[in-house]
C-alpha cells in the first residue's frame, strides 16, 4: 500500500509540476548561496559583519551583538509603580523580532534583545539566530540571561513576546525560564500618555514622551522578509537596520522606565513640578492604581492632578472626570462622607458625569442614610439628565438600564416608608 500511494503521489506531483512549469515562475528562486558563507558558517559571518561574537551549544550556534548607551538613571521610585519593580533585583528589558505576528507554532523569534543597566550604562545584548536548526542555542543563551529573580520589562510582551518564547521552549520540550515579575509598559503607557498621542505604539510614545527621533528606521512590517532573505542566502548586512530597530526598541523601554521613576512618580507627590508631566498623565496613573486595587495611591494622583489643573482651565469635562474618579477612590477607601460630598459636587456641577454622580448619591442615600425618599429624588435627577442626553442624541444606555431597575424599587420603598410614617402618625 505504501508503495502504491507513493507512486500515486509521485504521479500527481509530476502533473502538478508540469502545470506549474508551464506558467512563468511567480517568485524568483534564490538557489545559490554565497560560497564564502558556507565556508565560514552563518554564525561567524553574522558576528564578523555585525561586530559581535559567536556562542556555541553543541552543533548549534548564535551570534551575540552587544552595545552600550550612557543612560544614568535613578530607578528607586519604580517600586511605587502600580505594578512595582524592585530596584534591588535585576531589571531585564526585552524585545523580539519575529517571522510573523501571532504566537502560533510556526512563528519564530529570530532576534531577542535583552537590556540591563550596568552602573550608568544601559547594555543591550542582541541574540541573533543564524539558522532555524540553531534554535536550541538561542534558548540556552536566553535562559542564562534571565535569572529567576529577573523582572522583565516589555512593550506588549505579556500578550506577544513572552508567550511566543514560552511556545518555543515547549516546542523543544523544555521549560521556559522562570522570572520574578513581568511589567508590560503598553497598558501603563496607554493610561498615562495615550490622551496626547496619535496612538500607543512604542514609536509614538518614545517620540511624544521621550523626545526620541529615529532616523531611517526600518518599518516593522519589512523585518520578517529580511530574515527570510538571509536564510535563502542573502547578505549579513541585511541585519544592520533590523538590529538598530530592535536595539532602539529596548533602549526606549529603558528611557520610559527612567521617565516613570524620575519624573512621573515624584510629580505625584508634588515634589518635582516639571512641565514634562501633565495633569492628565497623573489622572491616568491614578486610574492604573485604582485598577490594581490601590485607592490611596490613586487618590493622591487625582488630588495632585486637580491641583495641577491651571486656573484658566477651560476643559470642565476633564475636571469632571477626575473628580468622579476621585470620588470613586474615596468610596473604595471607605471614606464615605467625603465620597458622598465629592459625588454631590460632581452632580451639582451638571457635567457629563452628573448622571453617574446622582446615581452614586442615590445609592448612598438609600443604603447609608436610609432615606429612600431623598434617594428617589437623586435618582430622578439622574433620570432627567439621562433623558436629556438621549434627547440630544447621546443616549447613555448603561445609566438607563441602571435606572430602569433602581427607580421602580425606590418608588416602592419610598411609598412604603411614607405609608408607614403616615400610619405611625
Amino acid at each position: 500500500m505504501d508503495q502504491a500511494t507513493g507512486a500515486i503521489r509521485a504521479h500527481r506531483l509530476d502533473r502538478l509540476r508540469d502545470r506549474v512549469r508551464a506558467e512563468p515562475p511567480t517568485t524568483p528562486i534564490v538557489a545559490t548561496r554565497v560560497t564564502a558563507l558556507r565556508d565560514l558558517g552563518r554564525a561567524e559571518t553574522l558576528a564578523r559583519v555585525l561586530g559581535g561574537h559567536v556562542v556555541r551549544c553543541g552543533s548549534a550556534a548564535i551570534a551575540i551583538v552587544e552595545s552600550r548607551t550612557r543612560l544614568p538613571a535613578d530607578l528607586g521610585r519604580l517600586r511605587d509603580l502600580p505594578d512595582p519593580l524592585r530596584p534591588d533585583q535585576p531589571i531585564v528589558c526585552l524585545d523580539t523580532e519575529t517571522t510573523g505576528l501571532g504566537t502560533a507554532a510556526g512563528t519564530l523569534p529570530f532576534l531577542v534583545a535583552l537590556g540591563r543597566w550596568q552602573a550608568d550604562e544601559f547594555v543591550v545584548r542582541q541574540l541573533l539566530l543564524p539558522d532555524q536548526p540553531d534554535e536550541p542555542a538561542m534558548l540556552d543563551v536566553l535562559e542564562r540571561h534571565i535569572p529567576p529573580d529577573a523582572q522583565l520589562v516589555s512593550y506588549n510582551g505579556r500578550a506577544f513576546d513572552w508567550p511566543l518564547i514560552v511556545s518555543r521552549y515547549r516546542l523543544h520540550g523544555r521549560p521556559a525560564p522562570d522570572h520574578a515579575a513581568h511589567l508590560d509598559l503598553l497598558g501603563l503607557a496607554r493610561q498615562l500618555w495615550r490622551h496626547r498621542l496619535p496612538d500607543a505604539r512604542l514609536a509614538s510614545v518614545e517620540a511624544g514622551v521621550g523626545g526620541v527621533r529615529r532616523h531611517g528606521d526600518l518599518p516593522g512590517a519589512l523585518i520578517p522578509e529580511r530574515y527570510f532573505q538571509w536564510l535563502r542566502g542573502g547578505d549579513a548586512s541585511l541585519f544592520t537596520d533590523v538590529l538598530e530597530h530592535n536595539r532602539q526598541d529596548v533602549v526606549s523601554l529603558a528611557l520610559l522606565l527612567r521617565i516613570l521613576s524620575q519624573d512621573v512618580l515624584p510629580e505625584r507627590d508634588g515634589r518635582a513640578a516639571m512641565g514634562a508631566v501633565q495633569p492628565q498623565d497623573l489622572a491616568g496613573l491614578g486610574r492604573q492604581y485604582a485598577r490594581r486595587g490601590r485607592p490611596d495611591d490613586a487618590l493622591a494622583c487625582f488630588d495632585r492632578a486637580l491641583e495641577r489643573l491651571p486656573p484658566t482651565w477651560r476643559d470642565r469635562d476633564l475636571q469632571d472626570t477626575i473628580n468622579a474618579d476621585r470620588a470613586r477612590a474615596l468610596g473604595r477607601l471607605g471614606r464615605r462622607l467625603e465620597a458622598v460630598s465629592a459625588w454631590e459636587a460632581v452632580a451639582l456641577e451638571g457635567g457629563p458625569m452628573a448622571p453617574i454622580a446622582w446615581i452614586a448619591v442615590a445609592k448612598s442615600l438609600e443604603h447609608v442614610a436610609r432615606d429612600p425618599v431623598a434617594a428617589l429624588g437623586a435618582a430622578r435627577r439622574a433620570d432627567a439628565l439621562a433623558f436629556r442626553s438621549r434627547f440630544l442624541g447621546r443616549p447613555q444606555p448603561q445609566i438607563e438600564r441602571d435606572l430602569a431597575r433602581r427607580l421602580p424599587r425606590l418608588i416602592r420603598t419610598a411609598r412604603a416608608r411614607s405609608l408607614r410614617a403616615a400610619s405611625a402618625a
Partner: protein
Amino acid sequence: MRIHQPQPTAEVLRGLLAQPDVSAAVTAHRVLPARAAQLAPIPGWIDPRLRGALEDRGMPALYRHQVDALEALRGGEDILVSTPTASGKSLCYHLPVLQAIAEDPSARALYLFPTKALSRDQLAEVRELGDRAGMQLQADVYDGDTPAPLRGRIRAAGQIVVTNPDMLHAAILPHHTAWFQLFEQLRYVVVDEAHSYRGIFGSHVANVLRRLARICAHYGSTPRIVCCSATVGNPEALGRTLTGRPVRVIDRNGAPSGERHVVVLDPPVMDRRTGARPGPSGLARRSALAFLRAERQTIVFGRSRVQVELLLTTLREQLREGRGPLDRVRGYRGGYLPSERRAIEAGLRTGDILGVVSTSALELGIDIGRLDVAVLAGYPGTISGTWQQMGRAGRRQDVSVAILVAGAGSLDRYVASHPDYLFEASAEEARLDPENIHVLLAHLRAATFELPFEPGERFGASSADDLLAFLAEEGHVRQADDLRWYWASENFPASEISLRVAAPENVLIIDTGPARPRVIGEVDLFSAPTLVHEDAIYLHESRQYHVDRLDWDERKAYVRPVDVDHYTQAELAVTLKPLDIFDEAALGDATRSHGEVMVSSLATIYKKLKMDTHENLGWGRIHLPETELHSTAWWLSLSPAATVGWVRDDLDRALVGAGRALRTVACLLLMSDPHDLGVVAQVRSPHLGRPVVYLWETVPGGVGLASRLFERTPELLSAATDLIEGCDCERGCPACVGPGAELATLASPRELAARLLRSLGDVRVAA
C-alpha cells in the same frame, strides 16, 4: 365518529393499506422481523463507579457491539463502529474514555463532530454519565462560541475536549504549544459521524488527522482512535483512509428492535401521453395524517424546504378538522434558528411533539429518540440516506412503519419500479481522497508550520520529501543544513484552507412585523437569490413572509408576515467556465474530461404559483448580482465529426435532453443525491468552441463525483441511451429527457437525444 383516537401502529397501517387507492399504489411491503437484544455482561475491568452509573440508567448489561468495542480498544486496536441509527453507538466511546479517566484523571480525550449541534448533544450525554458515576469530569465544547475565559481552562485541564475538525485544523493544531497538556496525555480521539467525512471535506479531515498524529507523536502520546459511522458500503476502507491506520470494524449490532414494516408507494400516472404524475406529497400527507390522528409519533421527510413548508401547512389544515393535535406538529429544517431546533428535538424526545416535517437537516445523528412512523415524501436520492431517514422510526419493542412515497423524478421512478434495489443493493461507499494533491500540499504546508519535518519523515503512508521539495520551490518551506524541512514564511497556512471549501456566509432573514424586528432564520449565500429575492414568498414554520427588501451587501433580507394563496419559484440562468482540466481522454468522436469549473448562476425571474394547483399566476424579474461557485465538473465535448449533418436547433435540443438523461443515470450510477449534480448544455461552448454537456457538482469544490464519472463515462453513456430508448413516453417526459410538449412539427427531443447518444455508438461497445 371520532377522527382522532389513539390506536396501535400496526392497526393504523392495516387501515391505511385497506384503502383502495393506497393499496393500488403499493409496489412493495416488507416486514422486517423483530430482533431481540443481544446482550453481553459489562466487562469486569470496568470501574465500579461506571458500572454503577450504567445500572443506575437501567443497563445491567451492554449490547454486544458495545462490549466488542470496549474489548478491541482494550486490546490496543483502533476501531470503527458501524451500526444503525440509535443503536447506542456513542457509549462505544463514552465508556472507554470515562474508564481511562477513572483509571487516571490526567488522561484526556478529543471528540470530533462535524457540526456544533451534535457536539452539544454528546457533551450532555457524557456529562450525565460522568455525574451518575460521581466523577468530577471536565468536559467542554471548544469551538468558535466558547467564551475566552473558558478557553484557557479547557486547554489546561479539559479531560474531554469536544470540537469540530475545522477548529482542530485552524485553532488547535497550529497553536499546539498552548495545548501541550492535552497532547501529552491524549488517550482517545473520537471521530463520530465518520461517514460524513467523504468527498473534499473528508479528504481535508483525513489530512487534519495526519497532522494530529504528528503532534501527538511530538508530545509522546499515541491515542487510540474510535470512529463511528452510519451504515456505509466500505467501513474498513473508510476508517483506514480517514485515520491512516488499520481499523477493526465493529458491526455486530446488539440493539433490539421491534417489528418493522417498510412500504413503497408509487402514485399512479395521471397522463400517459405526457407521463405526468402527481408529486409524492399527497400520499405522504394521507399516510402521515392517519398515524398522527392515532397519536403515533411520526416524522415526515420532504426533499426541499418549500416542500416541507407546504406539507406542514396542509397537514395542519387537515388536522384542524375535528380539533386534531395541530400544535403538536412542527417543521424542522436548516433555516430555523438553533434554539428553535433544540426545542423541537427536546419536544420529540419527551413526546410533547407528535409530528415533525423535516428536510434532511435531521438526517445526521441528532438525538430525537425513536419514533413510530417515518414517511419519506420522495426518494431521498441515496440508499444510505433512505435507510437513515427510515431509521428514525424504530421502537425497541413496538411495531414501527417506514413508508417511501415515490415522486415524479426519474430516480423515484426507478426505485418505485425496482424496490429490490432498495432492499438488496449494498450501501454507498463513502469516498475520500487524502492524496488529492491540492489538499495534500495545503495540509503539508500547515504541518510544516506546526513542526519541522525530519528528512524522510512520512506524511500519510509515504515520505513527504518530494512534496516538501516542491513546496520549497515556491519558497514557503526550506531545507536547512540539518536536512530538516522548516516553515519559512510570514503566512499562516491554516488560515488559507477551509475544510468545507464553501464560505460560511449567510443571509439573515429579519421579520419586521413585530415592534422589535427579529431574526427568524438564515439561508446560505448561493441559494439566497432564489429563496429571498425581493417579492419572494418565504415560508418559515409554515408561515408565509413577503420579502420586502434584500440588502445584498449587508446580507440581510427584510420580511413581513403575509397570508396569500401562492408561493414563488425562481429560475436560474447558469453559465459555466472550465478553469483547470484534471484529466481528459478521447472517446470516439467525443472527448471526456473532468476538472475545476467556475459556475455562475443568475436568478432571472420568479413565477407566482397557486398553492394547490401550481397554476401560474404571474411573474417578475429578479435584480441580483451573479453568485459564483467554485466546483468540479465532468464534461463531454463533441468533435466536429460527431455533429456532421445536425441542424443547430436540433443539436441544441438533443444536448439538453441528453444532459438530463445523463444526470439521472449519473445519480443512479454513483448513488448520489440528484441535487449534487447540475447540468449545463452548450451547443457551442465559448471556452471550447464545440458542443458540450457538463455535469457539475453543486457542492462547492465537489465531492469527487466528477472524477468517478470520468472513470465510468462509457457506462454512463450506454445507460443514458438505455434510459431514453426504454422510456414509455411518446416524445419525452420528465423521467427521461424532460417535457416534450413542443410543436408536433419539430423532431421530438426524445428522438434527438437518442440519436445523438447513439451516434457515439462505438462507445457502447467499449463499455
